[in-house]
């Protein structure tokens, strides 16, 4: 297995180089979530007056969203790139080398995680520059970065699975709005117990994305909330394990070789 690490590194490097050379893949995952956060923070600041709202700064409340939204964006991009490898036959080129299946998937995901961490650092820097204070302190920032890495890994594996299963970049792009529905029907703009519409509150409660956002949010606005952290980590770890298992299986089918 030890001789496979250079292969993992080479695949990860390729993933990063590809992304860096596609401005359309780099800029939107950073700019759009920040733009949405800015618009929401400006328009929804008065919601902080609601009794029970956990913070006086809507910006601090909304800062959690870019971490998840950015991961969704980069997932789609990484999935599309992998699907393109299937479509162009590049995956056959890889299959003809000594590359092991797990090394391909690990390298691909390592690239996604590295990008996820870079994105998270940018969101963090923007938040801190805008005056957001981290209630959980420097240790919370570290936990947040670890969480961002795991979220990228889990969503990256999901993107890889879809890419390998369908082999179509168009299908991955078509999945994009579906994933965004999960984001919008969540607690992204209000704490769940303050959502007045019953069906929306129920949907947000059933939606795992709510718990991912609340995990990040708790570190920013509440400090150390064990329940939020456990739920957030459990959901993302389960998503990660399931996605990696599915992606590994799809890769074995896609990278057929004797």
């Amino acid at each position, binding site marked *: 297995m030890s*001789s496979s690490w250079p292969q993992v590194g080479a695949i990860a490097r390729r993933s990063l*180089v590809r992304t860096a050379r596609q401005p359309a893949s780099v800029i939107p995952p950073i700019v759009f979530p920040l733009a949405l956060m800015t618009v929401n923070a400006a328009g929804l600041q008065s919601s902080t007056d609601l009794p029970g709202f956990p913070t006086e700064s809507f910006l601090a409340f909304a800062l959690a969203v870019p971490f998840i939204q950015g991961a969704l964006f980069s997932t789609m991009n990484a999935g599309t790139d992998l699907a393109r*490898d299937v479509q162009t036959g590049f995956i*056959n080129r890889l299959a*003809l080398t*000594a590359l092991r299946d797990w090394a391909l998937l690990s390298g691909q995901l390592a690239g996604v995680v590295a990008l996820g961490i870079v994105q998270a650092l940018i969101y963090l820097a923007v938040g801190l520059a805008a005056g957001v204070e981290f209630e959980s302190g420097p240790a919370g920032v570290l936990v947040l970065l670890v969480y961002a890495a795991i979220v990228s890994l889990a969503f990256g594996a999901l993107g890889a699975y879809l890419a390998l299963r369908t082999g179509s970049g168009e299908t991955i792009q078509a999945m994009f709005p579906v994933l965004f529905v999960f984001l919008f029907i969540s607690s992204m703009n209000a704490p769940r117990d303050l959502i007045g519409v019953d069906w929306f509150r129920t949907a947000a409660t059933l939606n795992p994305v709510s718990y991912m956002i609340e995990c990040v949010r708790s570190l920013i606005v509440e400090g150390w909330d064990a329940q939020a952290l456990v739920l957030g980590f459990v959901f993302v770890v389960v998503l990660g394990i399931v996605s990696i298992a599915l992606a590994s299986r799809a890769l074995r089918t896609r990278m057929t*070789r004797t």
Partner: protein
Amino acid sequence: MPFSTSIRGARVIALDGNHPGQCGSASSREVAGSVGPVERENGIEVEGLVREYRKGPRAVDGIDLSVAPGEIYGFLGPNGAGKSTTVHVLTTLLPPTAGTARVGGYDVVKEGPKVRSLIGVALQEAALDPLLTGRDHLRLQATLQGVRKDQRASRAEELLHRVGLADAADRKVSGYSGGMKRRLDLALALIHGPRILFLDEPTTGLDPQSRTALWEEVALLRREDGVTVFLTTQYLEEADVLADRVGIIDQGKLVAEGTPAALKAEIGRPSVHAIPHREEDRPRIAEFLAQFGEPLATTRDVAVRLRAGLGLTDIVRAVDANGVDVVDLELKAPSLDDVFLAKTGRTLEGATEEAEAEQQQKKRGA
């Protein structure tokens, strides 16, 4: 200790990990100075190879073939004949439905990783990443093929020069021409110093100049490095110029095999082609030429396959003596197309057109 040397013209590449069959492995180093096991194992042996797809006919239907070490074997056939499927099976990308195949002495089904370690492959589609540069590709491929870290850069540089891409090495592949992509594809296939090279229609779509350059490179590989080459093509000229032996495949079956000269000799006699001065003379000229051999089905001219012992001079004398009015009279030596025609009843071009029409019909049906 890393090493990079030349033994009997064969480039030796040092590799990481377990690469049992490659030039850099201990086994090959041991025998590289004399004709030993590696020499014997550089070939390809195929027996009764069958590959069926779930929906459709047998793409490969019971092929037997043998490629000797250091030989260039041309696998000639029209589109859809089964050439690429055969390559996919021999390069371990597809398991065969039946039959056996050994590449470099290893079974393609049971010993896939060992086969992959000693072959270089350039598939029909030069699957390259448009966002990477030529050098990026070579470094990636070198790492994935286990070339030692301290040799990757120099090996990439050497191959970039070899295929004439040194100046374009740091340009993204999206800006490469078709010929440049093919040359990069060849360089990628050679990065780990393979003993056996599979080239699936390497010159399809290339301009004549790029095609000739690639032929020269392939010939050089065999001549200087002793690489065994399995080359598929639908170009008669390519098989004729490049291959030591040719296998002709049609509808999944190997219909003929031998050296180009032997195959043509099997067809035997040359043909004479006459273009009538006036179209209405065609039947009369056909009748006249028929006394010299058996008529051939052609559209542009009137042609016969000459009987043994006859030559162009016999025809010219007879044409003169009988006052037959022709614009042009030509003697044609048998070509591989004649071999294909004799073996399948179709010309290679016609078979390709048929296959393309069939594919389009299927697409419309779907």
